[in-house]
């Protein structure tokens, strides 16, 4: 079976500091990978997605960037955090093929607080 991991689970960072959040998927190959942000009490906003190693599509221009150095690894980064970057960050994966009944499966999330 497939498993998705995210770390850290929680993070408190000062404004202006860098950020690196990591997501890894086990039990599948060539997944599509996604980063979402969820503000408190709000819906999910797609930030980035990737259909393969080194391929990143950005949905919303902002202070963040993403990279996919390995097939099952997805990293969310920032050089300088803003207060508005606080939120719950979710990584998700999908199979990337056989779309008929496939959908996205989410990780446990990282709670980021920027002070």
């Amino acid at each position, binding site marked *: 079976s497939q498993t998705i991991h995210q770390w850290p689970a929680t993070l408190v960072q000062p404004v202006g500091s860098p950020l690196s959040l990591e997501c890894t998927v086990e039990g599948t190959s060539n997944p599509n990978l996604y980063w979402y942000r969820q503000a408190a009490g*709000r819906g999910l906003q797609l930030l980035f997605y990737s259909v393969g190693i080194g391929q990143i599509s950005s949905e919303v221009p902002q202070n963040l960037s993403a990279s996919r150095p390995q097939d099952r690894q997805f990293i969310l980064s920032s050089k300088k955090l803003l207060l508005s970057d606080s939120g719950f960050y*979710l990584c998700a994966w*999908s199979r990337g093929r056989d779309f008929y009944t496939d959908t996205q499966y989410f990780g*446990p999330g990282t709670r980021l607080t920027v002070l």
Partner: protein
Amino acid sequence: QQQVKQSPQSLIVQKGGISIINCAYENTAFDYFPWYQQFPGKGPALLIAIRPDVSEKKEGRFTISFNKSAKQFSLHIMDSQPGDSATYFCAARAIIQGAQKLVFGQGTRLTINP
């Protein structure tokens, strides 16, 4: 056109009652409609999903009803239990450039009173 509108924003149901959450969409390119359940501090978990060529899908106490002509779909939770208290998100999927894009509703906070 990319929006999915979800209602109500919050819902309180007595234990044993039926919880109903509704969603509507405009984009006919959407081809799959999952529902997610999210508990506080956790990632959303896939609950049930339906294709638009099916009018109803049932899994245990959870049923999706789908009306393709009206571009509406709904989640029914029968015999609602306190453990069902969570936030529910409907979503609609489109395949764009080889990737799945999910458009989410704004969520419904469901509370089941014992």
